[in-house]
């Protein structure tokens, strides 16, 4: 469903992504792993139109979305859970969730329905429905960010390092929820530091180094890979 062909991205004059190609099929969960500065976040920003691609293209369901603006990409059915959560601190949990759907024509009709299903996945959000997003703890905000992304009925959910700064129990929790979400006809693109947890969710993974794909394989083979074990799993 998503295809990236020969993508180059630069900030100022420093090139961060080099000739990168990757693919995500329907109902597939794909991981992107790699050290800091390897270009994971930049890749995601490029897909979402938050930075512009130098060359190459991003194709979504057969249509090139390379030069689309972010809001139009979201409308196509791609939702992002950003690393910094990017919530609306002065709005309540519920308002934040509603906004996730309010500007997506298809999702707008199903706001109430979606709300209920998200409350099922994250009961804590229902409990805190009226609390202002800005006053919640980091972990809760992360849940809210995931919930908000799901409100748009995405076909592709992109998560940028969702586990950063989360306590161990919440990390486990979050990835369990991701497994549930996966079952609901949603493709997932997951960029993670926490490779151990990430591997439990994904079907296939790419390892990014210095803005290039170092290697790609399915989840099982990746977890047995020596380099991965040494560098990311600390074994």
């Amino acid at each position, binding site marked *: 469903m998503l295809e990236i062909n020969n993508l180059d991205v630069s900030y100022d004059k420093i090139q961060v992504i080099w000739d990168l190609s990757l693919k995500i099929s329907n109902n597939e969960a794909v991981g992107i792993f790699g*050290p*800091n*500065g390897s270009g994971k976040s930049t890749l995601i920003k490029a897909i979402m139109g938050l930075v512009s691609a130098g060359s190459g293209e991003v194709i979504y369901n057969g249509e090139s979305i390379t030069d689309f603006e972010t809001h139009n990409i979201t409308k196509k059915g791609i939702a992002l859970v950003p690393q910094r959560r990017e919530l609306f601190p002065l709005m309540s949990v519920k308002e934040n969730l509603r906004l996730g759907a309010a500007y997506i024509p298809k999702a707008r009709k199903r706001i109430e329905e979606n709300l209920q299903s998200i409350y099922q996945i994250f009961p804590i959000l229902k409990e805190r429905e009226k609390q202002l997003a800005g006053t919640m*703890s*980091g*972990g*809760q905000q992360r849940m809210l960010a995931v919930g908000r992304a799901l409100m748009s009925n995405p076909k592709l959910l992109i998560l940028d*390092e969702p586990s*950063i*700064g*989360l*306590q*161990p*129990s*919440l*990390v*486990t*929790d979050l990835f369990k929820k991701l497994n549930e979400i996966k079952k609901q006809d949603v493709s997932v693109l997951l960029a993670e*530091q926490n490779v151990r947890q990430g591997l439990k969710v994904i079907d296939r993974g790419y390892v990014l180094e210095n803005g290039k794909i170092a290697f790609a394989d399915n989840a099982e083979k990746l977890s047995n890979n020596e380099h991965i074990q*040494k*560098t*990311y*799993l*600390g074994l």
Partner: protein
Amino acid sequence: MPSLETKNVVKKFGGLVATNDLSFSVDNGEILGIIGPNGAGKTTIINLIAGTLPVTSGKIIFSGEDVTNFAAHERNQKGISRTFQTVRPLDDLTAIENIMIGALFGQKMGLKDAREVAKEICKLIGFNNFDRSIDQLTVLELKKIELGRALASDPDLLFLDELMAGLNMEETYELIDVIRKLQKRDLAICVVEHIMKVVKELTSRVIVLDQGQIIAKGPYEEVSQQKNVIAAYLGEDE
């Protein structure tokens, strides 16, 4: 004599109690782990001890001196240093100049001496790109700068606030080695971390916080078995 001792420290934000009746101590040469769920008050404690926030009540004793009413910069000059959860390098200064700040003001040195001190610290933490500007540095290097600046004020007590967050394992081990070296210099170190591997490897003792209170203390191996700690923080997974 412990390096740091807090006595019944309470901090309230409006009506909200952030830390409640907190008492603990750290000795020189010891590494204490502070763990707990997000929002438990870990960073608040650092802010209280480093002086970025005033306490509502209670006492903070450092090297036998009551520093409760000292301003943040005075506490730093006395020997309390910290790193920040999100790295906060100073953009318009080069890498080494960022580190020099600690020596210039924490130790009240001149420019020349401060540069020498900064160079020595760079050697210690394994950092070579002295004159790079900040936007050219990797995350690991930024973390090193953060640590270096804290060290440059020659602290007796050092707080590391999620220093390892966002690093991969290889990078994490590199920093663990650095911290071990520091321990040998007889520093008292407090580590706030979510990565249990780091806590396990480094600390001799941990305190577990939940909702501003200490719910458990002792060596990590013991604490991690306690039911309340698992329920509030660790989860059932590993």
